[in-house]
Every structure is written in structure tokens, then in C-alpha cells.
């Protein structure tokens, strides 16, 4: 009883804090990422008071229908990134291993599964879900992970099955995914106890599309020399396009960010003070070492100007029909970067190499992410053959820092940068 009361009090405090924060933000000209995320998590954590539903959803999942129905989306993968960035990954992963999960499994999944049982981690655990939405366009791991959470929280699970597109998109796949969008809408209707709002989803779809366009425009600024932002900045600013896609907050935030980047370009300010070498990053960031890596590359006057990871949230815009978002959603969510063959991925990498005019390619071989990492060695060979730029593959893990060796990685980066420098100096001569 006492415990329950304390729990309710805690929620009320979080709720009031969120309200207060939101109120004060109205007078702020530009809101910081921290402010926005704080309001977002307070609202999610006090959802019981405001009678809103909470859905856990995968990072590549179709969030727009949820937003149209006032369901608060929560992203366990974003939580995983926070756990990694706050260096709490090792402890939580170990806890999952004690629960019987192999240490070879995805560290986002391991840390989230462990965190759910203790309300630990950097934000004291995630708000409990009323429903789970799992889209397997990013991997098969999310299916297993969400099955585990559906058993643990005993809430309904919707699986949006987006067949893998090895060599293209077939009519069979189009029909299957499109019919699942209807099933998804029925699922939300059941969970919310009311009819789906088709008018509202049009507006949300429009905002989502606009948000993606703005995010792409922000990333595009790094094509300028010197790049006003680096991939490390993109890893930070990414949180909104992932978690609040389809809301006006995203538009405001990225509009302001874009203006800031344009201003930096106008004034010739680079993310790396003395940018001489430009690099492309592949795979999920090594969250527990982003600052260290950023400084390491900067010490060589190298800037990671772009990456395949943050681009993934605006990479399938070409399939979206703004006038019929619900219909085109099926294709846009199926043909994302990780759900296509490695030859098509290599083509996209080469396009980025040309667009951002980079001197080298850094691939994070991520033990936690098999669909992103298997095939990298072939992509590397294709890039070397087509563009002849040096490539560096670093083996690490996005969250679990236990096997990371700073000295070893440092030596490899130094050697790689020597090659880049020699090559660039020779071509200049």
C-alpha cells in the first residue's frame, strides 16, 4: 500500500514537472534537445494520470498511426543508446546474462530486458507499455526481444512483417505489407477503444514527411567544406526524428538547427576546427565512446562528415506519397536501408562518398547488429574497387563496453589516418 502510494506520488511529481517544463518552454525561443526529451519522458511516465496509452515501438517502426491516436511512442532502442552513452551497458548486459541470455546477443536487447525488471538505467526505467509494436524491417532480433517483453508485461504485441528486399520490391510483398497496415490500424483501435482518426493521420504523415525532409537538409549541410556538423553531432540530434517523428516539435527543432548550420557555413565554422580530412561512418555508433572517437579523429584534423546510420531515417522518402501517406507507408517502411541487399547498400554508400566528398570510410563492425554488420566486408571491397579510398573496420559493440580496447583501436585509427594523409598529400602534389 505504502509502496503504491509512493509510486503514485512519484508519477504526480513527474507529471507536474513535465507540465511546468512545458509551460516555461513556451517562452523559450529555441528549445534544447534536453528540454524536449525531458518533457517527452515526463509525459510518457505520467501517462497513467493523463489516461494516455504508451506503445513501445522499434526504431524503424511506423509511428504515425500511433501519434494520430494520441498514443505515446517509446523507443527501447533509443533507451539502449542512452544506456550505452551513460556507460551503464556492461552492468545491465551482465544482468541479462545472469537471466540466461547469451552474451553474444544484441546489447540493446540485453540491456533493455534487464532494465525492465529493475527500473534501472539512466532514466530509472521506461514507462510501462500498454502495447508493443514490432516492425522487423531492421532485424529479426526485435521480434525475439518484443516477444520477451510481451510475455514480461503481458500486453498485446503487433508484428509488422516487412519481407526482406534482396533484389527489389515485389507485388506480393506490397500486397502483404499493405494489408498489415490495416491490421495495424485495427490493433490500435482495439488498444485505444475508439475508431481510427484517418484525417489526423494525414496531418501526422505530412509532418513526418516534412520532418524527414528537414533532417535530410540538416545532414546535407555537412557536404560543405568545412562541414558545419559531424556525424557525432548527427548521432545526438537524431533522437527527435526517431522518437517524435510526425509531431510539430521535430519541425521546429530541425528548422532552428538547419538555420544554425547555414549560419556556421556562412561564417566558415567547421565542426572540426582545422578540417583537412573527411570521413564516412558506417553502422550504429559506439555509444560508450562517441566523445572519445570524436576527439580522436579531430586530433588528426579528420571530420566524420556523414554516416549511413542517421541517414536511414530519411532514406526512403522517395517511396512516400504525401497525398496518401497510409498507402505509401507500406513501401517506405519496407525498403529501408537495412532491409535491402548489400549491393544496393553499397550503391548508397558510394553515393554518399561522392556527395560528401570523403577521403576514407570507417566501418564499425558491430557485434550486436548482425544484419548491419554481415555484408560489410563485401561493401568495403566494393567501395575500395569503385572509389579506391582507404577503409578501416573497427570491431566493437554499440553498448557493451567490456571488450572495447581503447589502445588497440587508437593505434588502428592512427595507422589509418597515416594512409589517408599520405594519399591526400600525394594527390595534392
Amino acid at each position, binding site marked *: 500500500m505504502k509502496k503504491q502510494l509512493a509510486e503514485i506520488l512519484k508519477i504526480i511529481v513527474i507529471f507536474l514537472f513535465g507540465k511546468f517544463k512545458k509551460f516555461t518552454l513556451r517562452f523559450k525561443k529555441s528549445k534544447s534537445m534536453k528540454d524536449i526529451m525531458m518533457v517527452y519522458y515526463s509525459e510518457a511516465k505520467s501517462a497513467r494520470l493523463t489516461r494516455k496509452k504508451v506503445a513501445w515501438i522499434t526504431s524503424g517502426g511506423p509511428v504515425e498511426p500511433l501519434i494520430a491516436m494520441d498514443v505515446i511512442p517509446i523507443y527501447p532502442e533509443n533507451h539502449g543508446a542512452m544506456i550505452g552513452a551513460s556507460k551503464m551497458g556492461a552492468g545491465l548486459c551482465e544482468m541479462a546474462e545472469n*537471466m*540466461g*541470455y*547469451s552474451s*553474444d*546477443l*544484441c546489447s540493446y*536487447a540485453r540491456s533493455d530486458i534487464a532494465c525492465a525488471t529493475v527500473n534501472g538505467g539512466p532514466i530509472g526505467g521506461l514507462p510501462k507499455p500498454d502495447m508493443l509494436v514490432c516492425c*522487423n524491417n531492421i*532485424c*529479426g*532480433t526485435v*521480434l*525475439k*526481444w518484443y*516477444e*520477451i517483453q*510481451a*510475455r514480461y508485461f503481458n500486453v498485446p*504485441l503487433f*508484428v509488422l*512483417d516487412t*519481407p*526482406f*528486399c*534482396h*533484389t527489389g520490391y*515485389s507485388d*506480393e*510483398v506490397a*500486397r*502483404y505489407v499493405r*494489408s*498489415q497496415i490495416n*491490421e495495424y490500424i485495427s490493433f490500435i483501435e482495439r488498444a485505444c477503444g475508439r475508431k481510427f482518426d484517418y484525417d489526423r493521420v494525414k496531418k501526422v504523415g505530412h509532418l513526418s514527411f516534412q520532418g524527414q525532409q528537414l533532417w535530410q537538409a540538416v545532414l546535407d549541410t555537412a557536404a560543405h567544406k568545412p562541414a558545419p556538423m559531424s556525424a557525432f553531432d548527427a548521432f545526438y540530434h537524431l533522437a527527435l526524428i526517431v522518437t517524435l517523428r510526425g509531431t510539430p516539435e521535430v519541425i521546429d527543432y530541425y528548422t532552428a538547427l538547419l538555420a544554425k548550420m547555414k549560419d556556421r557555413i556562412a561564417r566558415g565554422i567547421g565542426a572540426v576546427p582545422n578540417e583537412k580530412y573527411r570521413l564516412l561512418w558506417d553502422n550504429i555508433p559506439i555509444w560508450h565512446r562517441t566523445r572519445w572517437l570524436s576527439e580522436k579523429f579531430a586530433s588528426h584534423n579528420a571530420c566524420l562528415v556523414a554516416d549511413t546510420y542517421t541517414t536511414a531515417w530519411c532514406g526512403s522518402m522517395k517511396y512516400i506519397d504525401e497525398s496518401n501517406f497510409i498507402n505509401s507507408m507500406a513501401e517506405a517502411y519496407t525498403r529501408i536501408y537495412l532491409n535491402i*541487399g*548489400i*549491393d544496393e547498400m553499397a550503391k548508397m554508400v558510394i553515393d554518399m562518398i561522392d556527395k560528401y566528398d570523403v577521403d576514407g570510410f570507417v566501418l564499425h*563492425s558491430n*557485434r550486436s547488429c*548482425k*544484419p548491419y*554488420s*554481415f*555484408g*560489410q*566486408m*563485401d561493401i568495403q571491397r566494393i567501395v575500395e574497387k569503385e572509389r579506391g579510398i582507404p577503409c578501416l573496420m573497427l*570491431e566493437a559493440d554499440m553498448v557493451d563496453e567490456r571488450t572495447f580496447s581503447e589502445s588497440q583501436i587508437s593505434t588502428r585509427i592512427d595507422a589509418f589516418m597515416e594512409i589517408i594523409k599520405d594519399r591526400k598529400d600525394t594527390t595534392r602534389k
Partner: protein
Amino acid sequence: MEKFTEFKNTAADPYTYCRKYKEETGKKIVGYTCSYTPEEIIYAAGALPFRLFGTDEGIHRADVHLQSYCCSLVRGILEEGLSGRLDFLDGTVFPHTCDSIQRLSDIWRLNVTPQFHIDLVLPVKLNTTSARQYLIDILEKFKKDLERALGVKITDATLSDAIKTYNQIRALMIQLYTLRAQRPEILSGRDFHSIIKAAMIMDRQLLLKTLGEIVEQIQKAPGSKINPGTKKLVLTGSICSHPDIYDIIENAGGVVVWDDLCTGSRYFEGVLDEKAPGLEAIAQRYLDRDICPAKHVGLTDRGESLIQMVRKHHANGVVFMLLKFCDPHAFDYPYIKEMLDRENIPCMLLDMEEQLPSGGQLQTRFETFIQIL
């Protein structure tokens, strides 16, 4: 039994068998990777379906394409593909299952030439009407892809024949497994393993004939009931490419009475409806059959089905055979173990790397486990 020689030789050296088969019959051979491959369609196209098992020794070509944290099955299959040892294949089919097989297909398509390559992107969900429809649609597409690749026409009649043949083969496999579970001494686990392996390789008409003869012979053979002291085990996991396991279990006083393996019951369980249209019958079998953990039907289906399996075969315990880096199975292990614990069904976990732990060590582990049963 002399009938076994055929099976044993085929299982021990599948490549020699295939080369000889091709030379003698002039038929095409199609490689495949998992038990979700609609072998019936390949058979109906007049080709020999050949399961790829990989290799566990001397992997170096695959190292250039796959990192160290990829499972030995996928690495082994790629190694064989790159080595040229599979040059007798006319093509390969990759049904979609896990993230690793998914990328194996890409790497294979880009590096192992010049055979034909077909991706069969099955649904991951197997419990909805739209998934069923998609499964039928995609099987239809596969049929067309295969017809084009092999330059043949698959008629309703040939597909119907194939379905009948496979029903007969599977019924015999189940009969054999059941007989063995009742009277383990009539057929060693190692021999049974050879039969299952050979069943995925050899000419299916010959298989049907030989299996029939063996089952008949075994039925007639004198033999007592199972020794009351023998402990009955169920194996669960992805594949078992180590026949030694059966010997070790038998030496430790146990016997495998059933399994939930991709190279076991998942391969031969489930009957095809001979009255339904061919592709629908094939689809329905996948929807009804026990699933691979890379597929989704519900939240506790695999656990429930395993418990039922244990009860049905009066097993004393379960052995989890977890292939290192096999994510779908590793994710399911804790919940299934918990369900078994609740039912007081003892289990042991066997982590399998490319090579098994040394014989003595494994023998002791099994002896200890079997003693507590």
C-alpha cells in the same frame, strides 16, 4: 544391416554421391539451407533437393566475408560455396529465416557464381490470414522462378505426385523414429542420424524404397522393450551435425526419443493435404508445423510444444543444443527453460561451437545430467 550402407555412405560423403548421381541420371541438383524450403516444388521440377550442411573444418575463405561473430553453420555453408566443392549444384535456394542466413544469401549471390540463385522471402509471421495468403503468393512466385531457372514446367500432376511422395517419406521417418524411441537397441542414434542426413541428400524415390524396407525389417526384428534404466531425452535446437552426441548420450545411459531440430522432427513432421491445391497444402504445413524461433506464431508456442513433446514420448529430460551466435534460439532459451522448470522437467544446456568440447568432458557432463534424471 546392409541397407544402412547406402545411407551411411551418402551421409558421410554427400558430394561424391551427388557427382555420381548427376553423372548417372543427368538430373539437376538444387542446394538449400533450411527446413522451410519447399522441397516438394524442387522435386516436382525434376531436380534433386540437396541440403547444405556446411563444414566445421578449415574455414578461411568465408573469413573474408563474415566476421568472427557469425555462427559456424552460415560460415561453413559459405566456405563450401566459395571452395568450389559444390560445383555440382545447378542453383541454390535461400528461404528467409534469420539475420545471418539473410546476409548469407546476399554474399552468396555476389560471390558464388555462376549457379542460379533464388531468394524465397517467406513471411516471419505464420499466424494471420494475410501471412497465409502471402505465403501462398510467394510459393507461386518461387515455382515460377524455379521453372525459369531449370527450364521446366511444373504441372499440377507433378506437384501432386511430389506431395504424395513426401507424405510417404515423412510418414516413414516418423514411424522409424517412433520405433526407435520404443526399442532403442534396434537402431543406434548414430545410424538414425545418418538416415536423417541422407534423407536430405539422396534420390527421394530410392530413399522412399529403402526407408520402407528398413522399417519393415525393423518391425519384424526381435527386440525387447527399452531397458527401464535408460533415460529418455529430447533434443532441441537448430541443427545437429555431430553424430557423436548420440553415442555419448547412449554411452551415458540415455537415449534420444524425439527432437525439435531443423535437421530432425521439424524437417519431417506435418502431413500435406493431398486433396488441397498443391501450393496451399505446402503453405498449410508450414503454418501448422512446429516453428523455428526465427518465425512468429505466438508468445509461448515453442515452450508448450516442447512440453507436449516431452509428455508424449515420456522423456525424462531435455537437452538444449545451442549453436554459438544463433540469436533466435538463444533468445528463446531462458523462457523455455523457465517453462520446463515449472513443469519439473530437467534440462541441460549444451553450447556448441564449431567443434564439440572434447569427448571425455562431454561424456562426464551427460553422465552427470543423466544421473539426476
